[in-house]
């Protein structure tokens, strides 16, 4: 199947420049029908750019595209869609005020003489949701009332309804949990069986190996390798990707656990959490697992003073301080890395220096004024330390790739010299090299005695670096144990609510390690 003579899609010598940045410097890439093809590469390697060229968002500077053997030059996304190219973008793309049904059928409404045929629209949307086993999603509520994961499901559903020839998925699973990932894989396999070509982008290499037939590796805007995924050696792919060997991405640095830094008891927010309790110590990495919608994000936000606390207690550094604001929390040395950096986390049209030093201008300000030189020096220090790929500290942050943006967001907490780090999905959308870097950074921090709360939907990383893992389900921490006592399977079964048969489920407030 992987060597069918007529390729569905063939891209050759594609080049693209954004100002001074060469995003693509000659990429060649082929996909056959009924093939799942993975694009692998570090952050900023050019994966999204390549796919955006295919879907008509960007125009290539050079290069040719052949679709089913004939030249294909999409002038806009509409054109590409008409030609059978569907794409799920890396960043969520929904019209928040429109309903679930309208978002699923957006741009391709069944209509007669310009009037919508609502029953058919409903049928199509329902069918797509059924495929993803999410038929319980109400069709008529605006999507801004869904959780991020549910929104992602809506996005995937949209890509399914057009009966595309080529389906591009740019990190579709970055905010999905295991269960939904399995659903997605089932759908991909169905599509594949019906002849659809799927281009799959993900930083989870195991995932890629499960689902893909072939792969192409991009490095610095060039395609550096392609091959059969099933037969490939992961270490070899990583080598091609980052240009060096990567043996152990989960570092084990010795760190000792000290006094309690953050203690939460029966915390209750407006909707979620219902009653969250945990205890985080200095020098500890505390992981929080759970299904999407379990209320992990809300717990962090309530702790940080961003959302209202209805009842319960928060004790910071052994001092009672339940009701608070982000300003006070930051002053207490607590920092939050938000789940959605684009909407809450970065000043997209400001430069890196401002973004990095925003919470702590104070450290170099005099009489309320900031010496720009010192600010830039501080920024460059962190840019070097975190190996951020950028022209200078004065570059606008929106011009960086997603992973590099994430590094800046983390860099801000480091610059702030926080003692308690609340990290909400810190590795979402980050390549494996950068991930390893962030893991070692986190361990480094723990070694320095910082307390780290690590929320993630990617279980291997939780198991890999955490000292303790708590599992959240329906707004409560159901169980909390040392990481060594958890297996991936157990984590999932607690997360989906099968806690009755696990004796440890009572261990809510016994966070000890």
């Amino acid at each position, binding site marked *: 199947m992987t060597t069918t003579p007529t390729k569905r899609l063939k891209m050759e010598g594609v080049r693209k420049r954004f100002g001074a940045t060469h995003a693509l410097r000659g990429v060649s890439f082929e996909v056959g029908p009924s093939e799942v093809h993975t694009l692998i590469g570090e952050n900023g390697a050019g994966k999204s750019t390549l796919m955006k060229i295919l879907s008509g968002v960007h125009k290539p500077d050079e290069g040719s595209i052949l679709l089913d053997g004939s030249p294909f030059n999409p002038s806009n*996304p509409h054109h590409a869609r008409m030609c059978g190219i569907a794409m799920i973008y890396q960043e969520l793309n929904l019209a928040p005020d*429109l309903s679930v049904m309208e978002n699923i059928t*957006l*741009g391709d409404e069944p209509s007669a003489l310009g009037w919508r045929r609502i029953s058919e629209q409903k049928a199509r949307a329902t069918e797509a949701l059924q495929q993803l086993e999410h038929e319980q999603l109400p069709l008529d509520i605006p999507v801004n009332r869904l959780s991020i994961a549910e929104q992602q499901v809506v996005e995937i559903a949209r890509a399914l309804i057009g009966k595309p020839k080529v389906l591009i998925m740019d990190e579709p699973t970055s905010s999905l949990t295991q269960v939904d990932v399995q659903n997605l894989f089932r759908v991909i396999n169905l599509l594949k069986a019906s002849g659809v070509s799927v281009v799959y982008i993900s930083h989870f290499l195991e995932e890629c190996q499960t689902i893909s037939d072939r792969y192409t590796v991009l490095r610095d805007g060039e395609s550096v390798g392609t091959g059969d995924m099933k037969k490939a050696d992961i270490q070899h792919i990583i080598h091609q990707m980052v240009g060096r060997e990567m043996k152990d991405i989960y570092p084990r640095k010795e760190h000792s656990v000290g006094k309690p830094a953050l203690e939460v008891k029966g915390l209750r927010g407006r909707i979620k959490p219902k009653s969250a309790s945990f205890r985080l110590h200095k020098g500890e990495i505390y992981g929080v697992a759970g299904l*999407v919608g379990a209320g992990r994000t809300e717990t962090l936000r309530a702790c940080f003073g961003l959302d209202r606390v209805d009842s319960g207690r928060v004790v910071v550094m052994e001092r009672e301080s339940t009701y608070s604001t982000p300003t006070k929390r930051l002053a207490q040395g607590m920092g939050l890395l938000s789940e959605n950096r684009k909407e809450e986390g970065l000043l997209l049209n400001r430069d890196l220096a401002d973004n990095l030093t925003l919470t702590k201008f104070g450290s170099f300000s005099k009489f309320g004024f900031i010496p720009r030189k010192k600010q830039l020096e501080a920024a460059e220090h962190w840019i070097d330390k975190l190996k951020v790929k950028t022209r200078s500290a004065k570059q606008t942050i929106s011009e960086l790739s997603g992973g590099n943006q994430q590094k800046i967001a983390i860099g801000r907490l480091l610059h702030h010299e926080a003692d308690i780090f609340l990290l909400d999905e810190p590795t979402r959308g980050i390549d494996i090299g950068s991930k390893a870097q962030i893991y070692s950074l986190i361990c480094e921090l723990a070694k320095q005695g910082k307390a780290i709360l690590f929320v993630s939907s990617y279980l291997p990383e939780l198991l890999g670096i955490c000292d303790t893992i708590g599992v959240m389900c329906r707004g409560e921490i159901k169980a909390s144990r040392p990481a060594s006592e958890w297996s991936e399977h157990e984590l999932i079964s607690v997360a989906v609510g099968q806690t009755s048969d696990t004796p440890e489920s009572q261990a809510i407030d016994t966070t000890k390690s």
Partner: protein
Amino acid sequence: MATDPHSKDSFNWKQFLNSFGPLLGLLLVIGLFSLSAELRPTFFTGGNAKLILTQTVIVATGALGMTLIIVSGGIDLSAGSLVALSSVVAATLLLQDWSPASALILTVLAGGCIGAINGTIIAGFRMVPFIVTLGMMGIARGSAKWLAGNKTVNPEENALNGIMEPIAPQNLWPLPMGVWITIALAIVMIFVMKYSVFGRYVFAIGSNEDTARLCGIRVRTNKIMIYTLAGLFFGLAGVMQYSRLTQGDPTVAIGLELEIIAAVVIGGASLSGGSGSITGTMLGALIMGVLKSGSSQMNWPTYMQEIIIGIVIILAVGLDKWRQGKQS
């Protein structure tokens, strides 16, 4: 996947408030004036209802177009100038012996043309609507004065004068034709906004333009259509303005755009786009109309009217904000 928060219950509540919020506002304002014993006997008469409707019709017609624009995430500051220009165009055409029917059509089309220019600049060059229409505000006003030769344009008595003529001013019936036209157009627009593909695209573009583009909606074309359609409405409002004054007046309707925008926003639309409704807008226009008419009949000094209308605008939108807060 936990979907408990979206219970059917809260959904109906929202629906209810969304449709009845502006209606409650209207009743509140009417209630306010019914408190005055002095005003009651004259305020609650058919004649006064007709008066308010007639005085509201121009704002309401403009607001139909503005709703489209605001829902799509834009704004149009040139609406008032465009109404003035259209009133001059209509009068000039009539003066040059065009038939009332063709003058009507040509004027409405002229409004559409200027709307199309707005739309083309905004969509084609991706410029901020606020600025483009601020510029157009001056251009249209200046052109109106130029076309009118810096005077008012006074054609002979003709059929167009009748659109806004209140016959039998003491009674509710018959309503002037203009009122019926606006009601009919409002009904058409309710359907367009709710059930047409175009209507949904307007919401999609206002809600998230990038998404709309990536989903293959022709954002540029649709935006041009939105501003053109709005321009047609402003042109029609201009004809009505002509009919009301029985003259083309290049200095009329200064600041009307703000009144129109206020009507749309009081009606529940959000200036950041993506939400709003024609029913709400019509109620918003009526709230403004009742308020203006009532406070001018209340023997309050003029400045009190300005202050009170200002306060009501803030309160109306504040209340809306508050009830939306209740929902989430």
